[in-house]
């Protein structure tokens, strides 16, 4: 068995993990599983793609940075895309989720997110058709790094980017007042309100972080695989599995869960075949639910 699966797994795991951070935050702070999270990913990616094309139309062809497959337009577009996805999440919360949440019916919110997911995805399909597209069609040469492993410059960059983002979110959650407010709200909503935490602003920050990271994960998929309207929906099960495996509410857990699932998927692709890949997250999910439903770093519900 070639060790190449480690690189593939880490990359898939990064995409899953970045998405799972959003899932785990919405789950622990807003207390519902957001089935539209995958579609934030797809919307962010298409928004980024649109901005890249717009920049391309304005300034013409831009040379890629060093050995990478993309130039500065993609980086600018990614930032705009992140902002756009965060706004989309905030907007959806304002018109839909917040109203249903105020009625106190948690499971209705889940159902609404399911309906929103269908609508968002179909709108993408309507606007961009279901044909896959790419940020760049250039083929990168993978460099051998020993042990039979090969890695492309894009892949190294994206792994580093993931590490920086995860570290950043972790510091935000543990070292800043906003982050501590978020933790307080997830641990005991009633008590958090009593001590005067501004719930509305915590909810906003939750959506902004979740949306922005979903966009990054989507763009990673876009750079390394392809862009399709279904790209986010197909990530939904791995993201949920990663969030539950890591323990709901835990950011390091979500990332570690994502990496475990990514590695398991890559291993399964090599051993069994690519067509069974999607079953891996289901098997891991069921195993966690049977053996340790609170996940690796979870806390018991009080």
């Amino acid at each position, binding site marked *: 068995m070639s060790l190449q699966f480690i690189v593939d797994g880490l990359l898939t795991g990064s995409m899953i993990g970045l998405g799972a951070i959003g899932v785990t935050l919405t789950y622990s702070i807003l207390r519902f599983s957001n*089935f539209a999270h995958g579609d934030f990913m797809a919307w962010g990616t298409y928004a980024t793609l649109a901005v890249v094309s717009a920049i391309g139309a304005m300034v013409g062809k831009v040379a890629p940075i060093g050995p990478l497959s993309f130039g500065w337009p993609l980086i600018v577009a990614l930032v705009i895309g992140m902002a756009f996805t965060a706004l989309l999440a905030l907007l959806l919360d304002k018109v839909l989720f917040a109203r249903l949440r105020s*009625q106190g*019916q948690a499971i209705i919110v889940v*159902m*609404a997110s399911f309906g929103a997911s269908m*609508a968002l995805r*179909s709108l993408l399909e309507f606007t961009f058709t279901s044909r896959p597209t790419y940020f760049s069609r250039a083929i990168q040469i993978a460099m051998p790094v020993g042990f039979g492993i090969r890695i492309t410059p894009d892949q190294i960059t994206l792994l580093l980017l993931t590490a920086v983002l995860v570290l950043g979110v972790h510091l935000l959650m543990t070292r800043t007042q906003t982050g501590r407010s978020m933790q307080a709200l997830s641990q005991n909503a009633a008590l958090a309100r009593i001590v005067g935490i501004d719930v509305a602003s915590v909810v906003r920050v939750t959506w902004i972080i979740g949306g922005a990271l979903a966009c990054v994960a989507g763009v990673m998929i876009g750079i390394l695989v392809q862009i399709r309207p279904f790209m986010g929906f197909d990530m939904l099960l791995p993201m*949920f599995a990663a969030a539950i495996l890591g323990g709901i509410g835990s950011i390091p857990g979500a990332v570690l869960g994502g990496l475990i699932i990514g590695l398991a998927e890559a291993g399964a692709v090599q051993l069994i075949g690519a067509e*069974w890949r*999607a079953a891996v997250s289901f098997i891991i999910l069921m195993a966690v639910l049977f053996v340790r439903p609170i996940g690796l770093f979870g806390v018991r519900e009080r």
Partner: protein
Amino acid sequence: MDLLGYGAFFLTTALIFSLVTLGLNLQWGLTGLFNVGLAGFVAIGAYTSALLTTPDDVARLGGFDLPIVVGWLGAMAVGGIAAALTGMATLRLRSDYLAITTFGVAVVVQLVALNAQRLTGGPFGIGFIPRPFGSLAETPLLFNLSNLAVVCAVTLIAYLALEHLSRSPWGRVLKALREDERAAISLGKSARFYRVQAFAVGGAIMALAGALQAHFTGFIAPDNYLPILTFQVWVMLIVGGSGSNLGAVIGSILVWAIWAGSGTLTSVLFPPEQQARAAALQIAAIGVMLCVILLIRPNGLFGDRPRRPWFGKRAKAAAAKSNSQS
């Protein structure tokens, strides 16, 4: 004459949908269990019945050539067992976990249908599924009407059985659990056991609907059981009003009429190369419709009473609130 034939065909499809919706109403409307993978259970039923009743096929397992009724019973059994296992794994946990797990079940069933060629025929599906009135196929009208009669009969039986169940002591326990879990448990009712039962019976009904559909069209393929099916049935239940069996049936017919009507409209209005995009717009419109109904009329057309959550801190908060008010 053609119109009558189309009417019969339309009603048959709508009633098969309403059978799935009845199953979902038992799980969600009566018991409060959230199933977002019902397409998987419908598929399990369709494939089970197809395997049991088709003539022998060397390319895949079985083709056992059994009578159609055996296929339907087998479909219900397998669908019920699959639902019971899903329920046992997740019903002791938060209700969201059931939603995520059923979502996973649908994904895995779709994978098996696509990839386990020896079992399911892979992407090309299974053909030559015997039809109840195959000998009448030369006269389409008679064929359609006899199919409609069968589907009508099955739906009516399921409807009456479910109405009876929801009024029986068993149904009263489910309602009690949904409304006030702690009170029901204090009376010695095992919440998890009753919920697993309701989830299994609902799954069996969905599987039966899948089997009916398979024998009605004579051909099944993995594409029939995509998440869009789950979504359609949810809209049907919400429009009809969850909790009401009559609402489930009428909601199904209504939503299917809207769906089929808007489908016909787009195929007339849009040129062929734009059809796929128009279909996407149709789905988006229905998705928005679901959200709007949830916002402005969460009880649908026939839903009767306000629903209360039965789990977690919010339920406790809601219970505390209603206690202090009374």
